[in-house]
């Protein structure tokens, strides 16, 4: 692929077991696995999507949810241009946790960061609306107050998953081939500059064009 590719670094945050990894798996592989192993530290995945004739490459950091590891999160969200804060619509505790994350990102992270609030597991409600413990309106209201995108998703059925990422992609200023040399952090890397570790012998030449 020769056209310019915009890379977006995105981080997923949220309480343990709300389905962060499952959302990423759905987005990246259009797959679902009930027994996805708990994430430790973080997992890294990428996915490309075409948005308005442009290719956007998401570089996704999927973090561990348990509060005990929350102190590590800044390592992952620093330099990130986007974040998904995920909660489980059947677990009110996870919504409280989402509020904490929003606060932390507003205080600590990149000011231009695009944040989406995501209520996951709506598939559980299909048969039984009683399972819902966080009203849709509650989520909408919080998102509006904080200036976030808002989606209710199901990683299991795929509902709204790609839509969430596309919406984020649309809000991030795209780069043209001309301004490939990107911000000071050098977050964006074009295809040509991609590191190729399997072929490390030749890779020195490939990284020569790097911005730093």
């Amino acid at each position, binding site marked *: 692929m020769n056209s310019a590719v915009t890379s977006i*670094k995105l981080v997923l945050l949220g309480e*343990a*077991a709300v389905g962060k990894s499952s959302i990423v798996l759905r987005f990246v592989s259009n797959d679902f*696995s*009930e*027994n*996805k*192993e*708990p994430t*430790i*530290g*973080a*997992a*890294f995945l990428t996915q490309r999507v075409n948005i308005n004739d442009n290719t956007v490459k998401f*570089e996704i950091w999927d973090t*561990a*949810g*348990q*509060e*005990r*590891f*929350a*102190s*590590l999160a800044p*390592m992952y969200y620093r*330099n990130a241009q986007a974040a998904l804060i995920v909660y489980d619509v059947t677990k009110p*505790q996870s919504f409280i946790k989402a509020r904490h994350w929003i606060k932390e990102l507003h205080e600590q992270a990149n000011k231009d960061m695009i944040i989406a609030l995501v209520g996951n*597991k709506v*598939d*559980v409600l299909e048969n039984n609306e009683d399972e819902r413990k966080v009203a849709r309106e509650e989520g909408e209201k919080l998102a509006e107050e904080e200036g976030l995108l808002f989606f209710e998703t199901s990683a*299991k059925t795929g509902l709204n998953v790609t839509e969430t990422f596309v919406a984020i992609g649309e809000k991030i200023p795209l780069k043209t081939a001309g301004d490939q040399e990107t911000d000071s952090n*050098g*977050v964006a890397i074009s295809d040509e500059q991609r*590191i*190729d*570790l399997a072929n*490390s012998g030749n*890779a*020195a030449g490939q*990284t020569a064009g*790097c911005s*730093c």
Partner: protein
Amino acid sequence: MDTSHTTHTSNNMSTYIRFCKSKVFVHPTRNAQDNNAGFLLVTTETDQPLYESKVAWVPEATLSRKQLAFLNKLDLDPSGGKTASHKHSPEQAILQLSSFHIPLASLYSIQFRNPSPSGWWYGSIILNSKSRVETLPILFFHDDVCPSTLNKKKELNKNFDPFTTSGDVYWGGMDFKDCVSKLVDLQKTLVDSTVWLVNPTLDDLRNFSPQKNTNAKPNEAATATEGSEDTGFLPASFWSKLDSAKWTIMSQIAEKTNQTGNMITHLIKKHPIVKFVEQNNDNPYVRKMLQNPKVLEVQDDFDSARIYLAKWALGVKEEADKYQLDDSYRRLLINELKMEGEQDETTETNFDLGMDIQFSQQELNVAIERNFPLTRPKWDSFFDSQGRISITVAEIKDFIFHGGVDVNDLELKREVWLFLFNVYPWDSSKDERLQILESLQESYSNLKMVSMKASFGEDNSEEKEYWDDQIFRIEKDVKRNDRNVDIYQYNTTDGKQPLSEPTEPSEEGTDSEMDANNEHWTINNPHLLCLKDILVTYNSFNPNLGYVQGMTDLLSPIYYIIRDETLSFWCFVNFMEVMERNFLRDQSGIRDQMLTLTELCQLMLPKLSDHLKKCDSSNLFFCFRMLLVWFKREFIFQDVCSIWEIFMTNFYSSQFQLFFMLAMLQKNSQPIINNLTQFDQVLKYFNDLHDTMNWKDLMIRAELLFIKFKKIMAITERQMNNIPTRRKVVTSGLEVHQENEDESESTKQSMLPSDSKYLKLLLSKEPIRQREEPRTKHSIR
């Protein structure tokens, strides 16, 4: 015929003859007329473990007719008379007539010398006792007159297969070998394939370790010898070694001459050294050595003292090892593990090493040789009759560290892990272990009950919410833990694959059906239930720490090996004693390890360290997951078990995982330096290493890195003691380091590695225990 295998003595002891071979001869003189026929026996006392079995030789001439008939029958039919038990059993009486009757375990080695195919000489065995005094006659198997051997030969010929399963030509001695190998740990030496060691120590095995390269690459070895002088290539030390061995052997021969008359003259015609040389005759090194007159001279002195072949082989091996310049792996390791700064004069190391650190051949050999796993016969040979380990713990740990526990023997791993994870003390007897087991079972069931009460207990809102939350977390994580591992895979009540087609809707089944109600499905798999119960119990057993994500990863291999809820729980508890520091709320334990690793990396891999600094990665944050769950996510399940059991030995250091991590950094340093420039790239690189590395290679590197580290520490320690003023500067440096991390970098320039509290601690084998603070309602979950 009223004979039986067993003899009952007054104290109810009975001896059982498990092996009997007739027409086994002693040749006391050159003259065939002097040959003595006899029976070779292996006996076991019925209430003694198998490995206490004994070997005996009884001359025919001393036996009564009845006894002779009894043994002849046994020779032909080893199971004959087994069931019959009789007062007048002849075993004891027969054994009293034996020329020798000694425990198999008191043998050092057995040499099996095949008969000549053309019938020129008989097959024979030489039993070498560990004791220097005891000398046993060489036993010749007269296959042509031995009924059982003839029968078996006939049998084999009928099947057109003169070979036994091992591929060797059958002769009488093979039956003896088969029998003995079932009773003790009998291992063929690769230096001389006729010599088998009995219950060898790891050092024995190393001494007889194969000259893989010598045999595998004769051509390369040939190239290497070119140009070396006939006499010049063997160092003086080798000759002195040989000389001293010769002296010892001469005295040995004198001893033997006194004891056994002219037996000596009938010792092996074909000399062991000659044999050894023949087997390696494609090796020019060996060929040249043979031509040396000194070797020829010593050879003559060697006749008879077979046991010294071991020592001699050690000398040869050591010399030959030095000769293995063509060993590419060895060379690669030596090159790669050199001090990075050594070749590069522009790189300033943080301290004045003033020496170059090299590995001795022995250090390299020990690290590289990983072919002697702890096997069942070996493990059994460690125990005495009371089930107490009779060798040092260090020796056992040496085995485990350098060869691991046989990966194919799950039952053995289970036994060993119970010691490794401190459930059973290394010095416990069998009875004591039974008592421990009982009390552990009782206390576990109490703890489990308490934890159930705690979780269902009082309605006290916040506390109850906490417990409920924890149990939810545990269940959720257990359901998604290692579900690709066989025992955890299927959610069936027996844990096995359901027989019915998965299309049939049922509560039990594969992934696709159990999500009927998303994550609220019920666990049926008994192994998953055990994991859950253990973690719930631990959650209340150690309430300050509680359950933290990652613990399932730590428990799952333990349970897989131990396969018992109670014992797995206690293994896990002891494991968590070591691992608790990884899970502290303030992350101080893992941070300490990262700081240690940072210093270690600066010291050992300065170039990589500099590069990581440029990548904004000098905090080594990317090692977090690997350190947290001991590389559980980086290697396949079985390999994780092998790696952990090595760490658990604390053989070199209680924090050996940091050297393993260092080895991983070292191994990957070229790709990193050449390709990675940013924090995220480094993080990503280390995040995706699953199943890409050979753990054994890393373990070898880790060991060598440790050895090198230890040498550096020793040398700088000495340097420090020579400069008394330096200590002051350095001490304040450490304080600064603790208070102000920004300045520590510059202060460290004047710091010797032996001053770092982190680095010093790496030399300790004592596990570091850091406990969690008491939990309050404000504590992070």
